[in-house]
């Protein structure tokens, strides 16, 4: 009986991990308008970490890095060829104009900080 419970518990835990990190989506997206959007870089997360933008519209993001560890020092927009070094305690403005709709990841150079830029038509 206990054997079954523990095995079931373990499998449920694994299912939970898969569901939570891969299947359950990313939570609500923050829509970027004309004004710059502020993103706080602290404690291993971008806040907000999911950003929505329109294709062909210039997008201004202001990153404020609070985490002094070197992991946070760079933000890279993969596939968009944009990268920027962030200074601690200061806002760093990143301006980009995504042309094609799609999902673009932005991360620190080690990919511990992760965010998604969703570009709609």
């Amino acid at each position, binding site marked *: 009986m206990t*054997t079954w419970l*523990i*095995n079931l518990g*373990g*499998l449920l*835990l*694994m299912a939970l*991990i*898969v569901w*939570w*990190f*891969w299947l*359950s*989506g*990313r*939570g609500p997206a*923050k829509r970027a308008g004309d*004004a710059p*959007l*502020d*993103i*706080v870089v*602290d*404690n*291993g*997360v971008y*806040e*907000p*970490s999911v950003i929505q933008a329109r294709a062909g519209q210039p997008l201004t993001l*202001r990153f*404020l890095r609070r985490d*002094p*560890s*070197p992991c946070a020092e*760079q933000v*890279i927009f*993969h596939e968009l*060829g944009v*990268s*920027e*070094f962030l*200074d*601690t*305690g*200061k*806002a760093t403005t990143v301006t980009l104009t995504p042309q094609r709709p799609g999902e673009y*990841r932005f991360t620190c*150079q*080690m*990919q*511990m*900080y*992760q965010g998604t830029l969703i570009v709609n038509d």
Partner: protein
Amino acid sequence: MNEQTLPIQGATCQGCARKIRTALLAVPGVSGAEVDLEQQTVTVSGNADGDALREALLESGYGVEALSSSPSPEESVPECHIEAPGPPSQDSGDHHHGGAAGHGGISPGSGEEHLLAITGATCASCVRTIESALSGVTGVRDASMNLADRTARVAGDADTQALIEAVKAAGYGASVIEDEQLADQQRDDQEQAHYRELIRHTVIGLAVGIPLMAWGLAGGTMMVTAGTASQWGWLAVGLVTLGVLAWSGRHFFIGAWKAGRHHNANMDTLIALGTGAAWAYSMVVVLFPDWLPEAARHVYFEASAMIIGLINLGQALEMRARGKTSEAVRRLLDLGARTARVIRDGEERDIPVESVQAGDLLRVRPGEKIAVDGEVEEGESRLDESMLTGEPMPVSKGPGDTVAAGTVNDSGTLIYRATRVGRDTALAQIIALVKKAQGAKPPIGRLADRISAVFVPTILLIAVASALAWYNLGPDPRIVHMMVAATTVLIIACPCALGLATPMSVMVGVGKAAEAGILIRQGEALQTAGDLDTIVLDKTGTITEGHPAVTGVHTIDGESEATLLTLAASLETGSEHPLARAILATAEERGLRTEAVTDFQAHNGKGVSARLNGALLRLGNRRWLDREGVAGGLQEQAEALGRDGATPLFLARDQQLLGVIGVADPIKQDSRAAIQRLHDLGLTVVMITGDVRTSAEAIARQAGVDKVLAEVLPEDKAREVKRLQGEGRKVAMVGDGINDAPALAQADVGFAIGTGTDVAIESAAITLMGGSLHGVADAMAISRATVRNIKQNLFGAFAYNTLGVPVAAGILYPFTGWLLSPVIAGAAMSLSSVTVVTNANRLRLFRPRGASRGNEETRGES
């Protein structure tokens, strides 16, 4: 219509008077305003409300406050500080939006100091206007302007954009000065502080962990027996360990929690779960020993504390090592001058380089740095540009020549006019470019990226799975083995090593390239440059100097070279033809004086003729002179010149041949050696040119290329590159970046040979700042070294994880009985990322020309 006279203060020039008039005329009812600068009064005509006028004056910055105690003279001193009249800083969160809940808004630069460059301020009273305008901005604590520097220093929690708007509204211009060096200093300080914090955490973790471990190793019991003193003792140890987790491991737990809420998992998740599980299990053992079989009543507090200590130590070491990877950028930043000696209103003064404006005249003395990009107005000197171009030889500069910020003046004094300042200078652009390229990902890193993205959740799954495996298959005490295996898997897995493998090497490689005068614009090029097998070199300006010069002079017996050149130069005076310019330049170089000629005639495709002192001079090709009946001779010498790729020009006086001058676009001094290096790297070297075959082949022979594509029209160059690619070759194209832009874009890697400090070559993936072809070979060598380094890192990181995780899960146990201790896992994990960074740092020692043979010319140390 009546008149009112109002007191003003601080108005000292006509500019202020104009501002006051404008301010007052805007008040309803005002028809005129006369400013008396001497009396410091203004007389207003019209039917305007006195209070409205006084207010307008105050707003313009020249008013006298009626209620304030009599204005002390100090108050109008330009540099005086004015208290902010604005309301105490409001919640700046109102101005911004989007900050996450709990964080409020971002207030960039809270408590910071902003430095603004002010334009249009000409007199002391403008200072007052500007200062009060700035003080009126929400959040400003203090604003002071320095007229000499034309800078304004603003302290307080204000938005820079608002500050600029305020100055603009007052009728002046402003821009933010970003002091890169100061920022760098602050960055250093912050890094130092963070480093010390990590070390503190290390000490705390190890101070608790090591004695506990020593106790265990020395045979002390790690078991808990219910109801004895050991239970209380271990409870105390458990609480101390909790303190370590909460203090030194705080950032791991917070990070893990935050990331988890965002459906993310990162390194913090692994460490928090690993150390947390060990601690929680041990606490259960201490509090409820009866729940567990006797053999399983073992505590693992020492593991939690040790792991926290070791991982903090690893991060500290990694940080130290990382600092070195950005050394190249730091060195570039250090090239910039801090102050500049500007000549304004006939006076010279040293001002911060940030406040130099385009159009300023600057003086640079021997040994000093050029502060901004500019054009020489006066003086002759030599500049050491090696830091930008990688070329070791100083370059002569005189009036009209351009100078670049960051280069060092060698001997003379120069006065130059600033053309590009701030972030527009070549140096600033280079730094921006290098920083951008350092963030680039070459394709080789993509696999690691994909793995990194799913790494941590996968490890979590493996940890649970291995725990279950131990439960179902393992020996007793099963619960202990489950806990140890899961914890060890969580701790040993290192996403950092994997994530750092590529970026660290790229940082160092790109920096290394920049030091050699090679700017990499596209991250992919860093990888592709090492895989090339064919290189197409444009002839003019790439292999050759790009401007024709006299390469040989032969005379008939009895005539001197000087006479020949003097006559030829006199003939060609005023001609714009490149061949003519080459002859004139040579004559000038040798100090020959030309004489005035008459009846100058250009014979298209043949040559030129003119009369000098009655004699008819002709300079042109042999065929034309033959037809004109000029006597023959010097045939052999002319053919020799032709073989070397020069155009022979014959000079005749009347019907008498005087000599022949060879004019050619000579190959650069080091082209041959550089091409030899490309051969040594195993490349096929192709020369492409629009020249006729014979002269192209002459140059090709001198340069030592394998293949010549002659008589190619500029627009066909890209097609030739494509044709070579069609043969399955990896082709690089090297050109000046202007005429051959399509070919550069078509090539797998486009190299633009820059002219000194011109960095704005968009068409090429790689810009060579120096004019030498050695840059191509250097770039390839650096590319290969970097890719090799990345491969080592990736291999190391992959191998570490693919071996470490199964061993931690206990895969060796059935065969050898080994089960890894979580503490060893913590140490291994810390070391793995330090190793990657250290290996990347090894690249710093790489010398692109170190291995190549026969380098006559040596390059500076830098």
